[in-house]
């Protein structure tokens, strides 16, 4: 077994187990912590795939900012534990069956069909400058300048929306 495969399998196992633990943990704080572990393994995958800039952004934005926001809201609301209210007994088995169906369909569409049509090229060796901040920045500020500017509007609207929604109404 090569080092690459060993690294991939170990990380994949951590990612899948932490995602499963997030799904089935009863305490929302634990779920958030498991999700942080998952995001960190995905950041390591980005490093393996030649995207060091995205790996750092993943750690700072996802594992840092977004999950801190989640933890803040969980603690603010004091909603760590939710008593289980089962109203539909058939919902969970149906959800698992539909999830399996989705996975089988995605695997068929992504892997078998694309392999028949040779849509999945093998990884080739990449230049050392691939995926570094400079290359991404050049692409971002030339070819993708308009979407980049639009994300600034999106973030502004999100800030205003969050403030308006949580503003306490005084009458």
């Amino acid at each position, binding site marked *: 077994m090569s080092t690459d495969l060993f690294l991939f399998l170990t990380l994949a196992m951590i990612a899948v187990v932490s995602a499963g633990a997030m799904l089935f943990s009863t305490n929302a704080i634990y779920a958030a912590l498991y999700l942080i572990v998952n995001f960190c393994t995905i950041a390591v995958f980005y490093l393996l795939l030649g995207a060091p800039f995205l790996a750092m952004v993943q750690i700072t934005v996802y594992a840092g900012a977004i999950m801190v926001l989640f933890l803040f809201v969980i603690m603010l609301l004091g909603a760590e534990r939710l008593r289980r209210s089962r109203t539909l007994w058939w919902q969970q088995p149906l959800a698992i069956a539909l999830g399996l169906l989705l996975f089988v369909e995605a695997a068929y569409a992504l892997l078998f069909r694309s392999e028949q049509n040779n849509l999945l090229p093998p990884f080739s060796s*990449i230049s050392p400058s691939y995926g570094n901040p400079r290359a991404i920045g050049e692409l971002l500020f030339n070819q*993708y300048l308009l979407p980049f500017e639009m994300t600034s509007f999106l973030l502004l609207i999100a800030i205003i929306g969050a403030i308006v929604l949580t503003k306490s109404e005084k009458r």
Partner: protein
Amino acid sequence: MIPVAYYITLSAVLFTMGALGVLIRRNAIIIFMSVELMLNAANLAFVAFAHAYESLSGQVLVFFVMTVAAAEVAVGLALIVAIFRTKHSIDVDQMNRLQG
């Protein structure tokens, strides 16, 4: 290097687990976390394909997805806080009336 299909399979597994989380959990915050998991699975597929095709556009798109996810989380959590104020619960089964 290992084949790109491995990364795509892992991405499909993580996406399915996120979809399962949305379907089986009733806690609104955990449903949000599952949505984040699905976004991350899609991002992983983007980065794997970007490497396989030696194109940086996939990575730039991941950058945009992260921005949109950040905006979505800010607004979504504000909505959850606002709902908790009126209903004192974030169980999605309780949110069955439009009139607060």
